[in-house]
């Protein structure tokens, strides 16, 4: 295996295009674990850490641009991620433990597309758009369409995820990523990502995604619509929760049975709403 560290995105894309077995190394939190376990064997490893275009968070008009190499720790403390974008910051705060948050990057995490991870659901709830860079240019992929299956994304093999674009709107939104895990810092048994705009107790905007209950984040427009325009009464939330529960397709694993995962969705939704109401 060869290790290279290009200093520009175009250089990295060129190496990637020229080598079918090349893989990109972001923070390493997942890929190095896979290397250690001999699960991957790239011919070339492209270290992305020296590419400035992938670094940092910038505000661009009505969007926040998070470079793919931005670490969870950096996202967790960035005060610009408010309103709608706060759901991503809330998720970043809850990923694993400090040492992992210092290493792991948002780009690496979402390209791995582990449905038990925190970012996928949060990005769907935040209506994020993911920027894929290829040699022929970039394309923008809504988070909803990015996650295709377990560990599978719509990124092409010769593309590199360069940034995550988070809309600032709706600006008055409150956001919560609520995660339940067996032990502190573990992957979520179930997580819920919720963005709400509350107007005098009524809900004028809602977007909710559930993680760890299927191969990709669970997002139902129908549920957003049930909540939007309602006063978020208990029965409304129960109805939304039931819809999510019915659509969920979790698996049995060491973190919890499929049934258990399904059953706690409504309660998590209720709690997320309650917590946002308290703040709001």
């Amino acid at each position: 295996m060869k290790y290279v560290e290009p200093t520009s995105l175009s250089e990295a894309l060129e190496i990637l295009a020229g080598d079918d077995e090349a893989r990109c190394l972001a923070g390493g939190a997942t890929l190095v674990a896979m290397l250690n376990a001999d699960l991957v064997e790239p011919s070339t490893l492209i270290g992305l850490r020296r590419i400035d275009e992938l670094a940092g968070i910038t505000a661009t008009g009505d969007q926040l641009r998070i470079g793919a190499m931005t670490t969870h720790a950096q996202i967790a403390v960035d005060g610009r991620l408010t309103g709608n974008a706060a759901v991503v910051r809330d998720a970043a705060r809850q990923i694993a433990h400090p040492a992992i948050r210092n290493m792991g990057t948002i780009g690496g995490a979402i390209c791995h597309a582990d449905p038990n991870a925190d970012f996928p659901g949060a990005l769907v709830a935040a209506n994020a758009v993911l920027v894929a860079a290829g040699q022929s240019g970039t394309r923008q992929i809504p988070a909803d369409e990015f996650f295709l299956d377990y560990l599978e994304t719509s990124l092409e093999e010769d593309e590199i995820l360069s940034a995550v674009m988070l809309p600032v709107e709706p600006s008055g939104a409150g956001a919560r990523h609520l995660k339940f895990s067996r032990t502190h810092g573990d992957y979520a048994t179930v997580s819920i990502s919720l963005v709400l705009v509350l107007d005098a107790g009524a809900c004028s905007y809602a977007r909710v995604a559930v993680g760890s209950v299927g191969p990709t984040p669970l997002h139902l427009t129908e549920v957003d619509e049930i909540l939007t325009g309602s006063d978020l009464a208990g029965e409304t939330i129960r109805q939304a929760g039931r819809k999510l529960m019915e659509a969920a397709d979790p698996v049995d694993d060491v973190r919890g049975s499929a049934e258990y995962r399904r059953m706690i969705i409504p309660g998590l939704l209720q709690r997320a709403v309650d917590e946002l109401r308290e703040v709001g």
Partner: protein
Amino acid sequence: MTDKQAVTLSINGDCHDVLADPRRTLLQVLREQLSLTGTKCGCNNGVCGSCTVLIDDLPMRACLTLAVAATDREITTIEGLETGGELHPVQQAFIEYQGMQCGFCTPGMVIAAKALLDRNPDPTLDEIRDELSGNLCRCTGYVKIADAVLSLVDADRGQN
């Protein structure tokens, strides 16, 4: 397949030139090539925290860091905490409060505690518990580890 690459690592203030397979983790290079065996391997999976080192002053997992990707960064291991033969206050506090038993997790725990206090000299008990949760300890009740870290918080307050 196993083309080794020259890697220069800055560890505890010293530069080390090593020839390493790019697949080698920093943990492997520390322990096997540089004989810095204070950093421990408990899971090789990033989960247990025994291999926690500072990279540019931030705690990270040496088992999830490739040595080749650690060049031009300042690495601090447990062996680098003493200055002028004096133990670091965190090390002293861990001894004083008996914040360890078998000691296998201790280098990682001490590093994580130092990083926490460097960033936040005045953490609450809950913050300490949250921040150190990435480091598994199978022996202690965690009580004495928290006490050790809290003792430094109090000391700082006293100075202020």
